[in-house]
């Protein structure tokens, strides 16, 4: 227990110290984590802590991240991406693999090893790239979108790669086991036997592990394919039909932690299913995310999973930093540095060429090329897999591992280079095309009850984009049936507002019915987003004061307007000409607003109105004025009964006597 706490504390303190510093210098959080990992690696080594096994746990952060990415991506958008996904992604993987394979063969590797190296290194780091793009707000840019297409294709490509790699090993192992060793010694390995021993160990360990937890181990190829497709179908079908009722059921319980637990259970469950059938867990959760992207629980899921993702990814980056083997790096410094830089240049070059073909232009071209030039975390996975399958000798794999880690370490620097050197040159061209921003000024409506529902209908029918958040699962379900899309969630939570897109929104309508919750939303949003326009629902006249103090732009009393309309109908029913009734009500509203302002100075939210003598006196002094105004005995209010359309020679008093 103590040692667990110690490790946790070590990781946390490293992150807490390094990340803010890196952010302050504009280096991004990823580099901060990586440096934190490097800083604590001697301590971890001294404590004999297995960094790699921690890294395997932390890789789950990538799985969660892809789930979140999927949530942001509706199926329709995924379909729109298909050309880039297959064309750009496919070409990147094929061309990069081919080039690296060719170069590796020039270095004297046998083609199977060379191909395995190519496959390992062609992949980029989803974790680093997406984290950095999100952090810099570049995810929605053309370069960011193109990069994401490639990353997604790579995630899919990992599956056939995992199937292909064992095949590469077979002829070697059957016939010329020694030839592999020869090649290894050819590249300057120190100890052939030691390497071989390690490989055997790993292989035993891994294969045992695999066979214990795989559903498809002993199946034929076609059965395997059937199970795999079945699993994907299960994720989609369950995501579509089962998850919604499940969350509705959970939401009824109104326990936040159970909702979080359910969200985690969903992600972990899908990841487990995918691993069991030999698919990438990241891909599975991504699919589940896409399926749930249109559901009302999307924003709630996002804000529930996001903290876990953030922490796990941070841990992952730290372990990448910590796993760098500095003694090995020191021994082969020039070779590994050269290989890493060569790898980055090669990958960036391929991406640059592809960006011309797929018309990624301007600054986005460089963002796309530089951001994806590293090798990625799947490289780690594939490397241990190739070693386990005796495709790549361990001594070679160790050096490649260093290359992968170093290239990931250099990536944040490439982002910094893009920010400082390249982006400024293209600022002009960015400013020139405001039309390409695909998301219009968004409106967030908190609460879709009887109040917010009307507002939403008005805005939607006028062609505005709204994001609706409500925490009443039952009414959401009803709205769904009428084709109104609303998201489940508690709008008083900052993270949920964030997930709903408050950073990009122009307008927030607070339409929930709980006075203190309304206050807290308005207060929080005004404080953190000074420029957003807030239309707030006031429950009572006294609530108006609180909302005014909190900084709402428009404060609308929820029953006042309908009450005045009912009053107007009553006047009409009593035989008042409808135009007169209209004018009376206008005057009444005008007077009421005047009274509200007059009384504000003596209102004290800490004293109940009935006990506030100054307040009572003020109200009493104003009420006769209102009677006079309504009966046309004063000309205080221009829109009221007293004035308007009185012929010359008549006075209001005369008139009212008639």
């Amino acid at each position, binding site marked *: 227990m103590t040692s667990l706490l110690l490790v946790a504390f070590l990781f946390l303190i490293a992150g807490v110290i390094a990340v803010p510093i890196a952010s302050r210098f504009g280096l991004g959080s990823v580099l901060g984590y990586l440096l934190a990992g490097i800083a604590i690696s001697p301590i971890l080594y001294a404590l004999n802590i297995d960094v790699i096994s921690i890294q395997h746990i932390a890789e789950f952060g990538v799985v969660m991240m892809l789930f979140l990415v999927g949530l942001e991506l509706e199926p329709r958008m995924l379909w729109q991406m298909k050309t880039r996904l297959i064309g750009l992604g496919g070409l990147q993987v094929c061309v990069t693999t081919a080039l690296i394979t060719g170069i590796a063969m020039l270095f004297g590797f046998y083609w199977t090893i060379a191909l395995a190296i190519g496959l390992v290194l062609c992949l980029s780091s989803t974790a680093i790239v997406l984290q950095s793009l999100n952090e810099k707000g570049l995810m929605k840019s053309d370069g960011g979108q193109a990069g994401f297409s490639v990353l997604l294709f790579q995630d899919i490509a990992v599956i056939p790669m995992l199937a292909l790699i064992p095949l590469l090993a077979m002829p070697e192992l059957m016939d010329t086991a020694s030839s592999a060793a020869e090649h290894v010694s050819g590249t300057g390995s120190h100890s052939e036997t030691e390497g071989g021993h390690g490989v055997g160990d790993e292989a035993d360990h891994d294969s045992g592990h695999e066979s214990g937890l795989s559903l498809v181990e002993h199946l034929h190829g076609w059965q395997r394919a059937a199970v795999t497709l079945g699993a994907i179908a299960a994720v989609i079908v369950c995501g579509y039909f089962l998850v919604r009722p499940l969350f509705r059921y959970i939401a009824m319980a109104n326990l936040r932690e159970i909702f979080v637990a359910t969200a985690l259970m969903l992600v972990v469950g899908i990841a487990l299913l995918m691993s069991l059938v030999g698919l990438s867990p990241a891909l599975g959760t991504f699919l589940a995310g896409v399926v749930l992207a249109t559901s009302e629980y999307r924003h709630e899921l996002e804000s529930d999973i996001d903290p876990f993702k953030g922490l796990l990814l941070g841990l992952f980056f730290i372990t990448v930093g910590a796993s760098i083997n500095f003694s090995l790096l020191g021994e082969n410094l020039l070779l590994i540095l050269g290989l890493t830089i060569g790898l980055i240049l090669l990958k960036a070059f391929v991406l640059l060429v592809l960006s011309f073909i797929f018309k990624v232009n301007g600054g986005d071209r460089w963002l796309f090329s530089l951001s994806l030039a590293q090798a990625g975390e799947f490289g780690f996975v594939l490397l241990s897999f190739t070693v386990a399958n005796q495709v790549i000798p361990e001594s070679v794999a160790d050096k490649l591992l260093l290359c992968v880690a170093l290239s990931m370490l250099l990536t944040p620097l490439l982002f910094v280079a893009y920010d400082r050197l390249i982006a400024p040159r293209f600022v002009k061209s960015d400013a020139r095309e405001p039309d390409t921003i695909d998301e219009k000024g968004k409106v967030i409506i908190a609460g879709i009850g009887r109040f917010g529902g009307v507002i939403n209908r008005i805005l939607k029918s006028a062609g505005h984009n709204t994001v609706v958040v409500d925490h009443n699962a039952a009414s959401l379900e009803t709205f769904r049936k009428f084709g109104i899309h609303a998201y489940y969630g508690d709008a008083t939570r900052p993270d949920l507002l964030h997930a709903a897109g408050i950073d990009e929104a122009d307008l927030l309508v607070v339409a929930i019915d709980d006075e203190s919750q309304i206050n807290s939303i308005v207060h929080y949003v005004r404080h953190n987003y000074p420029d957003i326009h807030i239309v707030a629902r006031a429950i009572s006249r006294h609530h108006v004061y609180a909302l005014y103090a909190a900084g709402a732009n428009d404060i609308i009393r929820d029953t006042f307007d309908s009450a005045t309309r009912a009053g107007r109908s009553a006047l009409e029913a009593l035989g008042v*000409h*409808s*135009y*007169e*009734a*209209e004018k009376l009500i206008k005057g009444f509203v005008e007077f009421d607003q005047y009274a509200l302002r007059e009384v504000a100075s003596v209102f004290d939210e800490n004293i109940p109105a009935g006990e506030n003598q100054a307040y009572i006196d003020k109200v009493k002094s104003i009420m006769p004025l209102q009677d006079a105004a309504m009966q046309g005995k004063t000309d205080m209010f221009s829109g009221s009964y007293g004035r*308007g*359309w*009185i*012929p*010359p*020679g*008549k006075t209001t008093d005369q*008139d009212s006597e008639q």
Partner: protein
Amino acid sequence: MPSMIVYYAHPGHRHSTVNAAMQSGLDALSNLTRVDLYHEYPRHNINIETEQNRLLEHDIIVFQFPFFWYSTPSILKEWQDLVLEYGFAYGPGGDKLAGKTILAATSTGGEVQDYSLEGKHQTDIRGLLKPLECTARLCQINFAAPYVLFNALSKDNATEKQSHIDGYVKLLSTLQSGALPVDQIISNNTLGWRDVDQLMETK
């Protein structure tokens, strides 16, 4: 027997003496469509469809209103702006109202001598009603001589006012019954209650 619709526009109906009484006088007539514009559209939300259908169903359109600032009350202008649509009342295919007749019935605070080229307003009432007349012409609607009461706010002409009110009811009932063909009041400059009496006698 021509069908008739009376549009009444008075935002201060409560303060009115003459116009309100003219409206009450119309209670005696049957088969007359009456619209109090300020009552029907207190928030000026005029229903174009309803109004166009009303126009199609009637031959004689009466506008009854107090003369405000040399013009109609605002809702009657709003009504014209919205209802007399391109392609309906004018323009290509805009002949739906052709052959109908508009009769304006209005009352002014000023005296009759004020409304002349030499008088206070340096224009006569026909001149001031030109916009309405031109509107009618563009819509191929006949513009009848307006039925006018001057000096409507005075307290000294109660009998004359009553004659004007009675004359209004008489004029509308004879037009509606066909006893007075509508083309007989096209050529006059303006109509007063005395003219109505005269027309009755010549009948």
